[in-house]
């Protein structure tokens, strides 16, 4: 894991603004096939996560990796966040982390 590069909090919409940068987000797993996860972001967009570890469908999964497409992440680390996760709060945090308080994180 590259600990020297910060990972920006993003949702589906904000991912586009950080192409080729290190990002972190949480998706709800909709489909998991051969290391590629199709997930729903906290702002209800579909994201593709490549190189993801196996996380049960319907569970929430945190992805830290590099944004390699407007709706795609190449994963470095995936963490199973279970089935209890507040998507609206995380979505709000993503907006704050990319707006007025981005200096806290980047």
């Amino acid at each position, binding site marked *: *894991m590259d*600990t*020297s590069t*910060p*990972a920006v*909090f993003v949702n589906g919409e904000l991912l586009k603004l950080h192409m080729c940068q290190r990002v*972190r987000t949480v998706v709800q797993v909709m489909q998991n096939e051969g290391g590629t996860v199709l997930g729903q972001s906290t702002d209800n967009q579909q994201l593709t996560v490549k190189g993801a570890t196996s996380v049960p469908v319907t569970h*929430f999964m*945190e992805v*830290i990796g590099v944004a390699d497409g407007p709706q795609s992440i190449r994963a470095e*680390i995936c*963490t199973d*966040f*279970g089935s*209890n*996760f*507040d998507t609206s*709060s*995380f979505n*709000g*945090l993503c907006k*704050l*982390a990319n707006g007025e*308080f981005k*200096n*806290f*994180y*980047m």
Partner: protein
Amino acid sequence: MYASHQDGGASHFYGGGFMPSQATQTPDQAGSSKTRSSTTSTTVPLTIKQITEAYHLNDERADFLIDGVEPSLVRLLGRVLNKAERVTDVSFLLDDGTGSIEVTRWVSDSFDTDEMTKIENGMYIVLIGKLKAFQGKRHIGAHAVRPVQDFNQITLHFMECIHAHLDNSRKATAVPATTSAMNDMRAYQTLNVGTGASGDIRDVVLSVFQEPASLARENGLHVNEIIRRLGLQEQKIREAIEYHVEVGNIYSTIDDDHYKSACNG
């Protein structure tokens, strides 16, 4: 709400007790085999980026200034990396996505050992500890470490970092309505920002000018550099600068925004 410590110190981990204006007790673990002394403390939730940008007040005392506050304890949340266990301590790198910092947890009895046994590389943890510096490098002396069990705590922690910053910044920038009518002593008494004994803005501003690096600069420091480093309101910093100019501690150099210490450190 935040001053309560009836929950065995859990409030330090789950959102309470971090407002610096309210005294809190250090965590007293229920069922612990050891007794922790009670001291007044401020626990501030921070990101590691905030720590790396914190202003270091004094090399000897290892005190830091963040948003105008000297936190007694800090609360961090992140991933454990490179865990190393030794006889007297356990050390690891904590990465919260905004940066990474070395953490040391001294283990002196079975309670400490048991606590750290549960911690594994890659795991999300919350820690309470003291921010320290040695030879210019910052690190954390952890007092308590707990695994994150509900991942909503990650969102909560980062929200609380913002909340604490806004609250501390608001107190630091409170401006009396009749500042011009007050004398200097009253003006600083009304600040009430919860700062420590050395937190007087004038002393802090002067200390920046008297740093060796500042003394070495021919034209001194720009006012904006002071503002950026201390995270305080421009008006307060300019008032402190004006005071020091009047008493002869600093002087303006190339323009009205550049000042330099009149002392040679």
